[in-house]
């Protein structure tokens, strides 16, 4: 009731100050009186100024006289209320004095503060009441702040109340200082390990809301946050946003920087969030937007982006796809010029199709060739298993070979071929080398030899593109050798064929 009075008081002077202290004296007094008149409920706590005012309209004249006295002797008791100018000071002085009459301790500049002078319960109540009067604030504030406001309110307000002997200049500063560490603690507790939870924000907002009222302390911030939230009442826009920015920045100061600001900015998963995003984004103008870490557990929303879990997951997925697209771009030739996912994907699809068609074409060609040419000896091919492409494997595999007699030869040949491989011999000479050795060897070794060619060939083609021809010639030689039935005769044939 009384609280409502106070709550109501904050509405009329919205843009200038969130507090009722700052409107021009005459209007403020009139408004105060009006509010007092509007209040239907009889005041319960006699300590309140407004109670007295509501009781009697007769006091109106008293107020006027008091105001005039104040005007005549302005005392800058509170330099913090600079936003509204001297008038604000006057009004605050007035109220302070009036409050002092009944109220010893609690002339806090806050609207909320005054009712809570008496007890902790008093502290609690105004905190719970802010949501209703500040219904212009987003609903989320209400939902979120109510459980936490009481939690954070009590110590904060207690401390605040303790500081207020009058409208002290330190009040607001002190209040913020006390509140924010509390917030810190709350936030830390709430947010330990929950990067994506928004639990910090309710606490933040809880502290924001009471601080909104005396927001005149931070006129600069208010100016910096004119954007506000379209959904919200201008009053509330003025109020939360500066406090957002203020508290956000303050939090940064304390070194909770990395986690807190990012949490404020990003940690949200399920919130009605555009407004919050804006506020947070505004508040964090000075901070760098954190890079969202990409793992399956913790994903932080980026600045200025929607934060529901689906869109977060979507974004992660999009980025994954983009990453892989880049990978594919390197693979597919001619994809560098193409930009845009769709075109690139088309390119990739075309490329895959062309590769598959090439395989088909080559297999056709191979089938036609196969009849005439490719007459590999089964034994030879089997022994080829021994020669796994890398030279190391080859040597290793040789141990597995069944033919023990050929092993020696193979090893010799392998060594020779390895040396051959190492050398950059011209095609002919290497061919000659390869051909000469079979002449001296037995059939098995010859056959084995022919298959050492193959891996050799492929190695050559791998490493040295210019030796492509070399590989083909070797293939010819191999084929020639493979075709031959009689190795001894073949040796001569081989030479001839070459």
């Amino acid at each position, binding site marked *: 009731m009384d609280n409502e009075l106070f709550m109501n008081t904050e509405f009329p002077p919205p843009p200038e100050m969130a507090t009722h202290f700052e409107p021009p004296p005459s209007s403020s007094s009139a408004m105060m009186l009006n509010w007092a008149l509007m209040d239907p409920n009889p005041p319960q706590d006699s300590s309140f100024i407004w109670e007295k005012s509501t009781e009697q309209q007769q006091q109106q004249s008293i107020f006027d006289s008091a105001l005039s006295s104040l005007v005549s002797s302005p005392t800058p008791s509170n330099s913090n209320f600079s936003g509204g100018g001297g008038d604000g000071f006057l009004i605050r002085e007035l109220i302070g004095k009036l409050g002092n009459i009944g109220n010893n301790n609690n002339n806090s500049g806050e609207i909320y503060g005054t009712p809570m002078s008496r007890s902790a319960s008093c502290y609690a109540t105004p905190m719970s009441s802010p949501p209703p009067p500040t219904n212009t604030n987003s609903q989320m504030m209400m939902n979120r702040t109510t459980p936490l406001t009481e939690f954070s309110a009590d110590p904060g307000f207690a401390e605040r109340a303790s500081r207020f002997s009058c409208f002290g200049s330190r009040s607001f500063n002190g209040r913020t200082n006390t509140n924010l560490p509390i917030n810190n603690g709350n936030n830390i507790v709430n947010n330990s390990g929950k990067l994506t939870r928004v639990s910090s924000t309710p606490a933040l907002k809880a502290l924001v809301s009471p601080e909104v009222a005396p927001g005149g302390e931070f006129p600069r911030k208010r100016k910096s946050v004119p954007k506000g939230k379209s959904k919200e009442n201008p009053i509330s826009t003025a109020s939360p946003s500066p406090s957002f920015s203020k508290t956000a920045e303050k939090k940064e100061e304390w070194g909770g920087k990395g986690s807190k600001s990012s949490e404020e900015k990003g940690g949200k998963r399920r919130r009605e969030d555009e407004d919050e995003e804006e506020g947070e984004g505004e508040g964090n103008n000075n901070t760098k937007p954190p890079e969202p870490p990409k793992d399956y557990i913790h994903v932080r929303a980026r600045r200025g982006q929607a934060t529901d879990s689906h869109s977060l997951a*979507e974004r992660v997925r999009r980025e994954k796809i983009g*990453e*892989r697209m880049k990978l594919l771009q390197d*693979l597919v030739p001619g994809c560098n010029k193409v930009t845009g996912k*769709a075109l690139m994907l088309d390119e990739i699809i075309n490329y895959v199709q062309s590769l598959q068609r090439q395989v088909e074409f080559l297999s056709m060609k191979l*089938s036609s060739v196969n009849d005439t040419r490719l007459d590999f000896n089964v034994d030879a091919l089997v022994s080829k298993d021994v020669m796994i*492409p890398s030279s190391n494997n080859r040597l290793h595999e040789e141990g597995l070979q069944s033919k023990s007699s050929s092993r020696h030869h193979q090893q010799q040949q392998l060594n020779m071929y390895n040396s051959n491989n190492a050398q950059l011999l011209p095609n002919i000479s290497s061919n000659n080398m390869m051909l000469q050795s079979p002449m001296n060897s037995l059939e098995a070794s010859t056959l084995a030899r022919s298959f050492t060619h193959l891996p050799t060939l492929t190695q050559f083609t791998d490493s040295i593109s210019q030796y492509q021809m070399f590989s083909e010639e070797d293939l*010819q030689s191999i*084929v020639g050798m493979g075709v031959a039935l009689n190795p001894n005769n073949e040796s001569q044939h081989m030479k001839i064929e070459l």
Partner: protein
Amino acid sequence: MASADKLINTDVPEKDVFALHFLRSLSNLRTQNPLNSPDKSIDRVRKIKKAAYVSMARAAGGNSRLWSRALLRRAAKDDNKSVRFSRRKRKISSKRRRSNQRAPVVEEAAERLRNLVPGGGGMETSKLMEETAHYIKCLSMQVKVMQCLVDGLSQK
């Protein structure tokens, strides 16, 4: 021809491995069909093509890749062979259908890609692209081997 990508591994064995597998499969073909081409040429071509794919799948890592696994499975099914595969976790493909928010442009291209790449039907788009990258590498390797072989044989 190994690619160095720390996050996504698309390493592909050397050409030799491909050549080895392919030639082996060709020889198997030959042994299966000792008489030179009783078949029609088309069948032969098909066989060779299949041999090429199967050998490529084997060379590329057998069961370690989704596409190779699917390819081998498909080939085995054609031959009515029983296929032994190790158990692997089934990714919930329903995840794909649920989300209508996925960019339609990307998704329709991904659909086409799925038709091309073996085993693409059960994959998420991001996984699909990984597999596509590996598949492209292996395909190009196989093409090179075959080209080499054809050239070598045809020149004689």
